[in-house]
């Protein structure tokens, strides 16, 4: 089980530059689907890689699904050499994404994200229209139900906005 509250608190208080995407971003916007992991797009600046590596180090990050005992070294250099990391941690599953299909990296997405207060911390979350665009661009058949829910959610929000201007 993923402790979303703790993971978000950890990233925020460690001053990591990240944007919530994927299932957790959908939940933040009001989606009802169950998601198992936390997906974030992170800034690839050197300082941010250092902050991210230091923040997660105590929580034993390891490559999800990889055999145990691989010589996986968790540090900023590893983050710099890779791009997208699907990890297990003692706080739960965490996907660190350098880029997402149809959206690009942190710098491309930041203007399509909104600051949201979550458990007392301000986190950036991809806005709903951008989340829909990213899901559409990914073009995965398994995402069709999630995409339909996001579009319905956008309609519901617009309906609410028009009745409560």
């Amino acid at each position, binding site marked *: 089980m993923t402790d979303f509250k703790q993971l978000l608190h950890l990233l925020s208080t460690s001053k990591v530059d990240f944007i919530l995407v994927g299932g957790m971003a959908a939940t933040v916007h009001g989606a009802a689907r*169950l*998601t198992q992991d936390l997906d974030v797009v992170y800034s690839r600046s050197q300082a941010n890689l250092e902050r991210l590596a230091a923040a997660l180090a105590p929580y034993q990050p390891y490559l999800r699904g990889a055999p145990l005992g691989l010589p996986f070294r968790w540090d900023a250099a590893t983050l710099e050499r890779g791009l997208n990391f699907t990890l297990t941690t003692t706080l739960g599953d965490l996907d660190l994404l350098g880029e997402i299909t149809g959206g690009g990296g942190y710098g491309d997405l930041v203007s*399509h994200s909104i600051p949201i207060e979550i*458990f007392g911390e301000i986190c950036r979350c991809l806005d709903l229209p951008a989340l829909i*665009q990213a899901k559409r661009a990914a073009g995965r058949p398994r995402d069709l139900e999630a995409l339909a829910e996001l579009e319905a*959610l956008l309609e*519901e929000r617009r309906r609410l906005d028009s009745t409560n201007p």
Partner: protein
Amino acid sequence: MPDSDLPPAPDPVVELYKQGVDRTLLRQNLRRSVDERILNLMDLQRLAEELRRAGQRSRDQRR
């Protein structure tokens, strides 16, 4: 990324899937705070995990 303020053009396949979306759940969630939505998700995760364990126990007992 293109301007996300524009409404997406309808996709006929997604429109079909949209008919199966339970909007009462969405409306209920929209009335909740963001923190409540996340705590609710974590409760659902716990329930799903417990159901998985119960299923596993049941399969083990039948063996």
